Structures are given as structure tokens and as C-alpha cells.
């Protein structure tokens, strides 16, 4: 039962796909990495519904026994009078109170409960579309007094095995200044080469007007060749629209399916969690990569930590020495990870 809802707490899952052509926006968790981690650690099916909390988390009392996991931003959670750690399974008992405060690091926290949040599935998803009052808990953000049901968790036996097998995962630390990788297009040709170079050189500041629909940015205006009004076409999670005044907006989970502003590029899906955890006054720098490189990085998560874009020629050299070295580094990292070694 929710005592205090926090700034914006909604039920979310992977999003509502398959109906974009009917004007149904996808919604879903802003930070997919934290969403997936929460379910993974608690032992839920991959896409079970969770609670997403923004800036300040909620206070709630549990009406039954279960297991919870917190991921994403650190909101200094406490279970009764004990600190509740993130990225680890926490058993809870009936009557215990979870209280969360202001995010110390990052913007959005995720709470997964064993069995998942049980709200009706609408068009294949339990995500809340607050603009259209669709899905989630009564189509809206949570309020004081709301009572949420959870689904039936996996069998006890399964749960016990999972506890032994899933290691505690390392909590993510969020930066105030991030770099995200972008593939140019589909209206990159609405901007001159110089304007695009500038866009990828400059640093932008997150505006307080940012929300689940878009991260609004302030900084050096991006100059277009003929204005930025286009005949509407499709928008993706990560599309970077340039407004009339030349300011970029990165479209996020609650983006409309279609729109009439020119899009200079699209943030790669694997860098979207960085944006989802930004707060007003944080900074973003966009880094241009080719679609080939973006797909390579999508398929090889271990390669994403590089700060410089890979040169395409390195990869296409086949099983070169460089390739061998990269594989070794990956194995080494995994060794430390599994054995809980620090970094």
C-alpha cells in the first residue's frame, strides 16, 4: 500500500509494441538496463512489470511476504529502520515499510517485486501511458492510498536456486556529464556539414522541462538549412528532434509515434539508460558513429566501454591480433566480476 507516492511513480515494463501504426505510444521503462536488472536479480520473468520512481521515491507498506530488488538511482532506501541496498534480493515481510528519499545519484529508480506488479495487461503490456490514461495502475501515476497487487512468484524451489546462482550485481554509478553515441539521420541532410560538426562537438545542458516524453536540452543552437518543419514521419525512442529555435530534444519512452520536427540523429539504444538517469543541469555530449558500428556495439556489449569509436577497418581484419586481445580482456573482466573483485 502506497503511503507517499514520490514525484512520479508509475508501473512500467518493456513497453507496448505492435501498435505504433495505430498511434499507440510505447511507454515502458526509461532505463531499460535497470529495469532488466531488477527483474533478473529478483528472479522474475524478463519483462515483468516494475515500479519506476522519479527523483524522489515512494513510501509503501507491504501487505504480504515477498522479495524485492531496487536498481537504478540511489534513493537512500530503508526497510523499516535498516538501509536497503540496491542490486540485491531483499526479503520483505508483511507490515514492513519501505521508505525512499531524494535520488542521490541518477534520476530514476526501479522496484521489482517477486511475481511482478499485477495490473491488467493492455495491448500486450502493463506499462503506463500517463498522457492517454492507458495501462499501468488505472492509467495514472501512483497516489497515496493506492494498493497494488503482485503476481504469484515462481516456485519456492526456483527462488532458492536463483538466490544461490545470481550474484549480487554491482550497483551502477551515474555521471553528471555523459557521452552518448548517435547514428545520423533521418533528416541529417536538413543540416549543413558544419552544423552537424558543431552539434557533435558541443556539450548540452539538461533543462528542467525534461520528462518521460523527452530530454530537452539547452546549448548552442543547431542551424538548419531550411527550417525544421517536416511533413510528419515516425519517431523512435532516442530520436533527436531539433526545434524551431535550434534546441535538441531527445525523444524518450513516452514519445509520440509521429512528429513534424527534423531529426538530426538517433541515440543508440544501449546509451539511452545514461540519458534516462540525467537530472536538470547535467550535461550531454553526442558522439557520431556509423550504423555498422552501432549494430556491432549492440551485439557486443563488452565493446561499449571504449571511449573512442572503433575504426571499422580494425574489425573487418577478421581474427587479427587485435581481435584476440579484445577477447582476452573480456574474459578477464568477467573473471573479476563473477568473483566479486573490485574495480
Amino acid at each position, binding site marked *: 500500500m502506497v503511503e507517499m507516492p514520490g514525484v512520479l511513480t508509475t508501473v512500467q515494463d518493456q513497453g507496448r509494441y505492435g501498435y505504433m501504426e495505430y498511434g499507440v505510444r510505447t511507454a515502458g521503462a526509461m532505463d531499460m538496463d535497470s529495469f532488466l536488472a531488477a527483474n533478473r536479480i529478483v528472479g522474475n520473468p524478463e519483462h515483468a512489470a516494475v515500479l519506476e520512481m522519479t527523483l524522489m521515491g515512494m513510501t509503501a507498506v507491504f501487505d504480504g511476504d515477498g522479495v524485492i530488488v531496487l536498481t537504478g538511482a540511489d534513493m537512500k532506501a530503508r526497510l523499516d529502520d535498516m538501509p536497503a541496498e540496491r542490486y540485491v534480493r531483499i526479503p520483505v515481510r508483511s507490515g514492513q515499510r519501505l521508505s525512499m528519499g531524494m535520488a542521490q545519484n541518477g534520476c530514476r529508480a526501479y522496484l521489482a517485486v517477486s511475481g511482478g506488479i499485477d495490473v491488467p495487461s493492455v495491448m500486450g503490456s502493463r506499462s503506463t501511458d500517463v498522457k492517454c490514461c492507458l495501462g499501468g495502475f488505472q492509467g495514472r501515476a501512483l497516489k497515496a492510498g493506492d494498493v497494488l497487487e503482485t503476481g504469484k512468484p515462481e516456485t519456492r524451489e526456483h527462488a532458492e536456486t536463483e538466490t544461490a546462482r545470481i550474484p549480487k550485481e554491482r550497483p551502477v554509478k551515474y555521471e553528471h556529464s555523459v557521452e552518448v553515441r548517435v547514428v545520423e539521420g533521418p533528416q541529417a541532410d536538413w543540416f549543413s556539414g558544419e552544423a552537424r560538426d558543431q552539434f557533435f562537438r558541443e556539450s548540452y545542458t539538461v533543462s528542467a522541462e525534461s520528462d518521460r516524453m523527452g530530454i530537452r536540452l539547452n546549448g548552442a543552437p543547431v542551424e538548419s538549412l531550411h527550417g525544421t518543419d517536416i511533413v510528419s514521419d515516425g519517431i523512435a525512442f532516442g530520436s533527436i528532434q531539433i526545434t524551431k529555435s535550434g534546441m535538441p530534444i531527445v525523444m524518450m519512452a513516452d514519445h509520440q509515434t509521429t512528429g513534424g520536427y527534423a531529426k538530426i540523429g538517433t541515440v543508440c*539504444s544501449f546509451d539511452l539508460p545514461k540519458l534516462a538517469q540525467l537530472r536538470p543541469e547535467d550535461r550531454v555530449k553526442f558522439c557520431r558513429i556509423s550504423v555498422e558500428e552501432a549494430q556491432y556495439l549492440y551485439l557486443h556489449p563488452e565493446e561499449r566501454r571504449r571511449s573512442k569509436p572503433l575504426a571499422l577497418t580494425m574489425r573487418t581484419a577478421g581474427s587479427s591480433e587485435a581481435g584476440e586481445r579484445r577477447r582476452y580482456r573480456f574474459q578477464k573482466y568477467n573473471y573479476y566480476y563473477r568473483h566479486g573483485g573490485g574495480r
Partner: protein
Amino acid sequence: MKIYPVGEMSLSVDFGNVISEEVNDQVMCLQQSLQKACIPGILELLPTYRALLVRYDPAQLTYEQLSGRIEKAGAEGNREISTTKEKLVRLIPCCYGGAYGEDLKGMEALTGLSEKEIISIHSGTDYKIYMLGFLPGFVYLGGMDERIAAPRLDVPRVAIPAGSVGIGGSQTGVYPIASPGGWRLIGSTPVKFYDPAAEKPILCSAGEYIRFLPVSEQEYRDIEEDVRRGTYQTEVIRE
């Protein structure tokens, strides 16, 4: 036809920065070709006025591979446009004016036409659905007669009821769910353009046509009752 990447998981097939039947037909035709081709890795297709957004799985298809398949489907599809084009017209019952269309009376002064003439013009066109967007089930209609165009209200309404039929500038359409908006409301339809409880939650698809059918208040109420019971089916004409 130009293809652009939209990140690493989508791409856009663009036919030109215009609103035209010809361009939109190409978008719809490509959508149909790709649906028929059942290419593994293609997850979702989103047709808009002038482009088709294709969401795909990069683990199954590279950008280059998919672009190639699309170019092939585009070339084959173009031959089909002129040959097979069945027009599907959905009849939408609409009760015009009075309490059902509060702004219709005021449009007489704006257009220089009588209420009766406005209704006749509005219901006398088959409107092509260019795309859906903005809200679930919200249709972007083309072909409205310029004579009944009217600017949006200076002060938008905070809440327009679902089923409201309106005119905003040169555009006409229906509000599928309650929403704030500045369109002039000329009528209401009891038909649900969006119904989460229905097997097919969204009534219309891009590429179909809509024709408004003027009905009386009594007919409106009868249809409303049928809709509530789940027994109403919109009439569809195939030409």
C-alpha cells in the same frame, strides 16, 4: 525512395517531404509488400504521411541487408500500385450540430455557409486515412474541402469528449479519447475509434477511407446503445 538509419534498430524508408496521395500510396504499398514478404527480423512497421518506419532486430538483419530487401520489395511493389487498389470505405455515423457539435453554428459566420451546407460538404467526401498518430486511434484525414476550413479556437478546450468530430484548419478528424484541443466541434459519433476492451482495440488503419454518415439524435442514441452492448459493427463499403 530513400532509406535512412534510425539508430541501430530502426530505419526509415522515405518517399518525399510532401502530403500527397501518390507519396502516401507508395508508403502503404511498401508496408503491404513487406507484410506479405514476412521477412524474419522485421518487428514492426509504422506508416506515416511520407515514410515507413521499420523496426527490426539487428541480431537477425544488418542495416545493409534490410535496405537491400526493402529496395527489392519497393521495386516489386510499385508494379502493384496501379493494378490492384481496392478502396475500403468505413461509414462513421455522425450526429451534427446542437449539443453534439457546439461549434457548428459559429462556423456559419466563418465560412459564409449555412449549417446544412457545411454538413453536406463534410459528409460528402471520402477522406483518406494518411496515418494514425498523436493519440491511439487518432486518424490524419486527407481531402477535406477548403470551403469548410476554419482556424482552431483561440482558447482550446481543456477536455474534448471522446467521439467528437471536429475541424482544425484544413484538417478534419475524430477524437478517439478525451483530450484537450483547439478544434471546432461540429458533431459527435457514438462509434469508438479506440476501445481497449475490444479484440481489435483500434478501429481504423492507414490506407482506409472514412465517410461520415449524418444521423439523427435518436439514431445516435440507438447506435450508442448497440456500441455499449458490443453489438455494433461499422458498415464498410469496398469499391
